[in-house]
C-alpha cells in the first residue's frame, strides 16, 4: 500500500514539472520570435549606416577616426555576453568555457561581463572584472547599449587598448547557436556589411552640416552602438533558442517518466489485488 502511495505522489510531481517546462518552452518561443523581429528591424539601420560610413570614410584620407586606430601594442578587453539565468542547456557553459580558455592563454586581458552567469563564474574564481552589466535581458534597451558603448570607447580611446573583442552566441537558427568571438574595436572598414551600392555618394556632391569630420565622428560611434545592439539581440535570441530546446527535451523526459511510473503504479496495484485475492481464497479454504 505504501508503495502505491509513493508512486502516485511521484507521478503528480513529474506532471507538475512537465507543466512548468512546457510553459517555459512556450515563453521562450514567444520571446525568441520577438527578439528575431527586433534583429530584422535593426538590420536596415545598421546596413544603411555602414554604407554611408564606408563612403564618407573613403573621403577622409589620412585623418583616421580614433575608433579606427590600429595599434600593435596595448591591452585587450574581452566582453563576455552570457545570460542572466540558467535552464538553457549548454548556452552559458559554451561561452564561459571559451572565455576561460582565452583568459588562460592571454592573462593580461581585461574582462567585462554582460549577464549574471558569466559574472558569477569569474567572480567565484576571483578573476578581476572591470565592469559588469546585469539585467540587460530581456529588454535590451538602447540606453543600455549606449552605456556599454561609452564604456568601451573610454577603454579604447583614452586608455589606448589594442583591441576590444566580444564573445557572444551567434544565432544561426532555432536549433543551432554558436559561441563566436568577434572583434568590436578597432572598426575595420573593409569588414562593414553592405556593398555600398544602395548609396550614390560621389565626392563633392554632398553638402555637410556641420562638417564631414563631425558627421563621421557621430556616425562611427553610432555604428559601434548598432554592433553592440546586434550582438546583444543575437545573444538573447540564442539564449531563448537554447532554452526552448532544453525545455522541450525536459517536457519529453517528463512525459516518458510519467508513462514509466504509471506502468509501475498499475503493476503495484495489480500485485496488491492479487495478494488480497490470494488471502481471501486462502482464508476461505482454511474455513472448510
Amino acid at each position, binding site marked *: 500500500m505504501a508503495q502505491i502511495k509513493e508512486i502516485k505522489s511521484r507521478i503528480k510531481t513529474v506532471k507538475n514539472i512537465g507543466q512548468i517546462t512546457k510553459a517555459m518552452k512556450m515563453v521562450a518561443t514567444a520571446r525568441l520570435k520577438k527578439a528575431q523581429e527586433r534583429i530584422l528591424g535593426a538590420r536596415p539601420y545598421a546596413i544603411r549606416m555602414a554604407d554611408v560610413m564606408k563612403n564618407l570614410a573613403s573621403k577622409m584620407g589620412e585623418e583616421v577616426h580614433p575608433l579606427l586606430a590600429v595599434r600593435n601594442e596595448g591591452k585587450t578587453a574581452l566582453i563576455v555576453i552570457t545570460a542572466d539565468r540558467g535552464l538553457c542547456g549548454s548556452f552559458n557553459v559554451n561561452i564561459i568555457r571559451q572565455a576561460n580558455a582565452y583568459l588562460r592563454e592571454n592573462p593580461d586581458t581585461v574582462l567585462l561581463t554582460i549577464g549574471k552567469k558569466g559574472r558569477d563564474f569569474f567572480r567565484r574564481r576571483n578573476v578581476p572584472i572591470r565592469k559588469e552589466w546585469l539585467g540587460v535581458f530581456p529588454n535590451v534597451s538602447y540606453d543600455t547599449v549606449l552605456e556599454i558603448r561609452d564604456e568601451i570607447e573610454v577603454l579604447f580611446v583614452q586608455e589606448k587598448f589594442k583591441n576590444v573583442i566580444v564573445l557572444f552566441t551567434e544565432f544561426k537558427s532555432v536549433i543551432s547557436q554558436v559561441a563566436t568571438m568577434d572583434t568590436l574595436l578597432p572598426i575595420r572598414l573593409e569588414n562593414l556589411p553592405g556593398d555600398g551600392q544602395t548609396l550614390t555618394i560621389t565626392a563633392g556632391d554632398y553638402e555637410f552640416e556641420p562638417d564631414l569630420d563631425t558627421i563621421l565622428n557621430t556616425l562611427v560611434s*553610432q555604428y559601434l552602438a548598432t554592433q553592440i545592439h546586434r550582438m546583444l539581440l543575437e545573444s538573447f535570441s540564442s539564449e531563448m533558442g537554447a532554452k526552448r530546446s532544453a525545455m522541450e527535451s525536459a517536457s519529453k523526459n517528463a512525459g516518458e517518466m510519467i508513462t514509466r511510473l504509471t506502468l509501475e503504479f498499475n503493476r503495484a496495484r495489480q500485485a496488491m489485488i492479487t495478494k488480497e485475492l490470494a488471502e481471501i481464497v486462502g482464508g476461505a479454504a482454511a474455513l472448510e
Partner: protein
Amino acid sequence: MSKTFKLQVVAPDSPSVMEDVTSVILPGGDGEFGVLAHHMRLISTLKPGTLEVTKDGVKEFYFIAGGYVEVNPTSVIVLAEEYEKSDKIDVERSTLSKKQAEEKLASKAEGVSIVKEKHALARNEARLQTVEKAKAYKK
C-alpha cells in the same frame, strides 16, 4: 516635376517608416531646417527634437532622439537613434523622466553620469516639445 518625395525613418529598435511627403522640418545639429522636394544633396547630424512632416497638406509630428539625415533630391532618409509619433508619446513618463534627470543633475551626486543625464534631459524635453507642437497644430 513631382512635388513629393520619399521620407524614410529608420531606427534600430522600431520598424522603419516610408512615406510620400511634401515637406519635412528637421532638428539639425546646427539648427532646424526644412526640406522640400529637389533639395540639394545634404548630410547632416540631428539632435533630439521634433520631426515635422507635411503629408497631403496635413502635418504630422515625430519625436526623434538624434542621429543623422541624408537628403537627396527625391528622398530623405532619417537615421534616428529612436523615434516616436507624437500620439504615441507617454507624456506622464516623459515628464517624470525629465524631472528625474534634472534632479540628478542638480544633486551632483557621485556616480551620476552628467553626459547621460543631460542626454536623457534633452530627449525628454524634445518629447514633450513634440507633444506641445502637435497640440498647437490641432488647434
